[in-house]
């Protein structure tokens, strides 16, 4: 890989895992192993983390009876129920954020990798920061 492609500053390289639109507009990230992570972390482990994140969002976007009941109830209360309790989607997003936090602490940070919650980027991509310190 050419050196010119590295976005280096003193601290980190940033790479972005984009959305996968092959199955529609539902939130799903590309389950690919970025070349910049080669040698830092096990390929399968990283892809497994991405798969788990995708599973959380698949659950959030699923058309289920729970979603139907929830939306019917919110509609009947004039959408005032939304002011009182989080929706199923928001709960899933929180779970995904918590999962990413856990994985950061346990698996990724020791290898010098930091994964940013995609919600902070508006669910457009997963930002992964790699420190140079561990190179």
């Amino acid at each position: 890989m050419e050196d010119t492609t590295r976005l280096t500053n003193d601290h980190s390289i940033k790479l972005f895992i984009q959305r996968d639109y092959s199955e529609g507009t539902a939130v799903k990230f590309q389950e690919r192993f970025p070349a910049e992570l080669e040698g830092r972390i096990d390929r399968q482990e990283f892809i497994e983390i991405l798969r788990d994140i995708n599973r959380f969002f698949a659950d959030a976007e699923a058309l289920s009876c729970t979603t139907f009941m929830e939306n019917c109830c919110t509609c009947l209360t004039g959408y005032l129920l939304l002011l009182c309790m989080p929706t199923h989607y928001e709960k899933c997003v929180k779970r995904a954020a918590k999962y990413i936090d856990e994985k950061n602490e346990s698996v990724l940070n020791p290898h010098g990798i930091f994964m940013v919650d995609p919600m902070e980027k508006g669910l457009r991509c997963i930002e992964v920061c790699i420190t140079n310190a561990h190179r």
Partner: protein
Amino acid sequence: MVRKWQFIESKNRVYCNGRCITGQNIGILILALFLITITSGLFFAFDCPYLTKELSPTIPVFAAILFLSVICCILRTACTDPGILPRATPDEILYLEKENSQNITLAGQVMVVQMRSGHTLQLKYCQTCKLFRPPRVSHCSLCNACIANFDHHCPWVGNCIGLRNYRYFYFFLFSLSILCVYIFVFNIVHIALRAQKNSTVADAIRETPATMIEALICFFSIWSVIGLWSYHTYLICRSITTNEDIKDTWNTSDHEENIKNPFSRGNGWLNCFGTLCGPLPPSFLNLRTIVQQENNIPMTTMRMNDSLQETTKYHTGENGISNNRVRDSSVSNLPRSFQQQQQQQQHQERYLPPDYA
């Protein structure tokens, strides 16, 4: 406390400390609210007392429920984030440029996505938001932002209609249609009852001139409101947006095979169910997140242009020089170390559910 909404890049207006976001021009929304309130007010003041006495006290009760649901829905549509996509950060832009191995400028480039269903989508690059527009996303020039599942920009509501407020818009049209018809019907009933008593319609009208005003307003509104409601019912059953219908995206007869809508679930009922009762993501903008000043988050377009210019000038060439230049631009924009990141995590508010617009 400085919150993210204070650095919004689109032309939207933000109220209630980041809880409400509307379009730039809300004059017509105020006019619409005024019209609805005046008509309903006249109905309650002039028709309801007579009708309650002659017919039933449930008439004003239903009218009140309808009126409240119309107001609720229109305000919900107007003040909800339609699904504005946040613009790409300078780091993302640099990464995109880096991945763009042909060294041609990103503007005008198209990303091709092959879907599992066999469709081929072409994602265009948005010059303003600096990202490849996901499927069904369109850039609204009035709001100056890319909106998810962009339907249209509604001046009556003063906001774009997109992924997150489409169902509120639909229910607004639905309840407004019913309200219009309800008021119109009971205006006629009122005049008819009075005419029976006084034996001439002209006398009855003279007794309650307000009724005629309401009837006229309702008569002229009914056609457009019910027409719009039926049109959107048709769109929902086919699972296409107004934007796609106007551009005839899924029905071009140029190609040999008919391009079917890949986002349709096949069944009209399922499409309705999915659009109206389906899951709704929270706002992508995170307007109420508290911003740490050291974050250096307020990126004005000027600075983004600077960093892009630096990238294009020094991207190719010798390793040493280009590395230095790229480092300079990224350091000036978002210096991040793990420690800083962790500090920010502790201070930053994560999604507080009641705060979502």
